[in-house]
């Protein structure tokens, strides 16, 4: 079930191992998409953004929200069971409320669905009964509310999700923006929940790149893998992007002069051994919050298996999947001033100067929200195009003195967004050129992209407009106002012979300012579409 790709079922959050969010289904296509209708709506009752893409297997949809898992009959939209995990009273630190309740997906493996709760525990839940077989915490991945216990960090507040490969659940440990605990990917035995291995995103002693950090700075260096990655079953490699280094003010980690490899990087982990096969630093010594956590998408380019990773920086990086060798970078953002370009080794050239600590802010394009952010992108092997949840943001960015609140070192940076429009964008990696775009009149990002062999690309805008478009041309084939913003990508699958598309909605409309979207309200629902 795991290597089948997205067709009758949608097992992986990103659709398939390759992270493409591509379905081979064709029943709904460019000829009939205009006839789509709502089949049912299911209320999740969430208190925060619905960031997960619904998973589906054998008639049942599985959806995480607010440390719960909902099982829903895909035919009727009726709830079958609900699993609920209560966060410990002593969990979380000062910023826990911002993170709590968010999940980017589930893993399905055998008879179990796996939830990574915000307190860094993995739950193996029986698909039929909704009862937990086991709940595992892992040594060293705590997140106490009491700062005195937190030592120098608020700990791990996991908003990402797990991914299943045969026999192993891959568990990203993130939440590293609030104290900078270093990022890891865990390999956990799918049956027993025992830890098989722990892969460090930041190089350890003896690894390439260890000396790109001042001694001791690695311990609170960030580099959390906060998006579900991709997997090559032939290479046995798991690929993930990582967050920027901590603190954002770089004075404790080389002042921007040291590369801090492993942070703002793309990392390949051997899933047999847990050893890191390679790390590619996309933004060496980053001080602009240009983390590159987006899912590295595996594609075929000129006959080779290549990672294409659109990221915050305004570039798509292309790497040889086996070696991590840099191949090229496409600039897909309209405006980039943080660098004059990427050289032949993949290093940014003429990077904008580090702002003076406590001094005036400088104008940077893109902004730290990025040209793409956490909202998932897609790739369609038939059209050969990426579909990007993009936006044209800039920022005024400043470096601040690092204050210590209780025991926790803060970011040491501040910024103002320069809002720009949402751009739903198709990009051709072969030509390095844009294929089409739909430019909206308000800021934000589409919730995430889905693309299918029916030559469709499906998404919901930040303004709550569900869109089905021709994947080749971008022509809108179907639209429906949902009345609330989406923060996740849709999935598609077959239910009793009919193709269904399900979009999770729920989140704050706009990105920071409600008044950009006065007609929208907070929602928390799954909405299912099908043909008559």
């Amino acid at each position, binding site marked *: 079930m795991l290597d089948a790709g997205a067709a009758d079922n949608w097992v992986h959050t990103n659709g398939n191992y390759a992270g493409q969010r591509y379905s081979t289904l064709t029943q709904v296509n460019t000829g009939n998409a205009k006839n789509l209708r709502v089949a049912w709506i299911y209320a999740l009752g969430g*208190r*925060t953004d619905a960031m997960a893409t619904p998973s589906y297997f054998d008639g049942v949809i599985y959806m995480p929200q*607010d440390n719960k898992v909902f099982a829903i009959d895909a035919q009727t939209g009726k709830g079958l069971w609900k699993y609920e995990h209560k966060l410990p009273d002593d969990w979380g630190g*000062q*910023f826990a*409320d*911002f993170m*709590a*309740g968010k999940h980017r997906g589930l893993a399905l493996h055998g008879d179990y669905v796996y939830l990574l709760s915000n307190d860094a525990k993995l739950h193996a839940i029986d698909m039929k009964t909704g009862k937990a077989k086991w709940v595992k915490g892992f040594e060293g991945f705590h997140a106490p509310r009491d*700062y005195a216990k937190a030592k120098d960090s608020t700990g791990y507040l996991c908003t990402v999700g797990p991914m299943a490969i045969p026999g192993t659940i891959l568990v990203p440990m993130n939440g590293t923006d609030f104290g900078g605990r270093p990022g890891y990917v865990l390999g956990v035995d799918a049956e027993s929940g025992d830890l098989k291995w722990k892969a460090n995103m930041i190089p350890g002693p003896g690894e390439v790149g260890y000396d790109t950090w001042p001694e001791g700075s690695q311990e609170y260096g960030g580099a959390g893998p906060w998006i579900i990655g991709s997997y090559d079953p032939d290479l046995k490699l798991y690929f993930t992007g990582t967050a920027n280094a901590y603190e954002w003010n770089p004075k404790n980690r080389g002042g921007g002069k040291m590369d801090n490899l492993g942070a703002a990087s793309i990392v390949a982990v051997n899933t047999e051994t847990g050893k890191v096969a390679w790390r590619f630093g996309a933004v060496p010594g980053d001080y602009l919050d240009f983390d590159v956590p987006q899912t590295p998408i595996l594609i075929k380019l000129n006959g080779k298996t290549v990672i294409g990773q659109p990221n915050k920086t305004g570039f798509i990086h292309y790497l040889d999947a086996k070696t991590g060798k840099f191949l090229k970078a496409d600039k897909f953002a309209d405006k980039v001033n943080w660098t004059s370009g990427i050289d032949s080794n993949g290093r940014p050239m003429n990077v904008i100067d580090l702002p003076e600590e*406590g001094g005036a*802010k400088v104008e940077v394009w893109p902004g*730290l*929200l990025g040209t793409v952010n956490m909202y998932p992108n897609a790739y369609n092997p038939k059209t050969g195009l990426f579909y990007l949840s993009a936006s044209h943001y800039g920022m*005024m960015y*400043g470096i*601040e*003195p*690092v*204050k210590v*609140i*209780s025991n926790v070192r*803060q*970011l*040491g*940076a*501040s*910024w*103002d*967004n320069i809002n720009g429009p949402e751009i739903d964008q198709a990009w051709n990696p072969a030509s390095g050129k844009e294929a089409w775009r739909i430019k909206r009149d308000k800021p934000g990002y589409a919730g995430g992209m889905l693309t299918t062999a029916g030559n469709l690309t499906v998404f919901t805008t930040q303004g709550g407009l569900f869109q089905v478009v021709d994947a080749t041309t971008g022509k809108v084939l179907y639209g429906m106002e949902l009345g609330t913003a989406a923060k996740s990508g849709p999935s598609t699958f077959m239910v009793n012979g009919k193709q269904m598309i399900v979009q999770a909605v729920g989140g*704050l409309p706009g*990105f*920071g*300012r*409600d008044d950009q979207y006065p007609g929208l309200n*907070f929602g928390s629902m799954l909405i299912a579409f099908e043909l008559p």
Partner: protein
Amino acid sequence: MHFSGRALYTVGLLLIACGIVRADDTAVPETNPYSGDPKAIKEGKDWYNNACHLCHGSRANGETARGGRAADLRVFNRGFRAYVETVKKGRNTTGLAYAMPAWGGVLDDQTIYQIGAYLETLAIDGANWKEGKAPETQ
């Protein structure tokens, strides 16, 4: 004899330091003893940009990448005492997970006052940092 708010505050801190009164017993002054103090404003700005701006934005207008529905502090109009109480106790947003955390016991009074002094410099029409009598609009 005239005592400035700043002097009374200093006396209060001394009483706390000597263990004569507990911090909880110290009345919050009606106005900010650090208002207009350049050094305190600079320190308050640094603290604000570390502790507050993630949700309220670096211009304190509530426009931010992370906070979603944080208040526009430029038009805070409930007076200094209400400001201090809100910072210490936190604030809920009905129904949603986004809540202002309670900073009491995390930031000390002096820091909270310094942040307030900085915010006063960002105030626009409609703001009130003097008395806690205006209707709640935040």
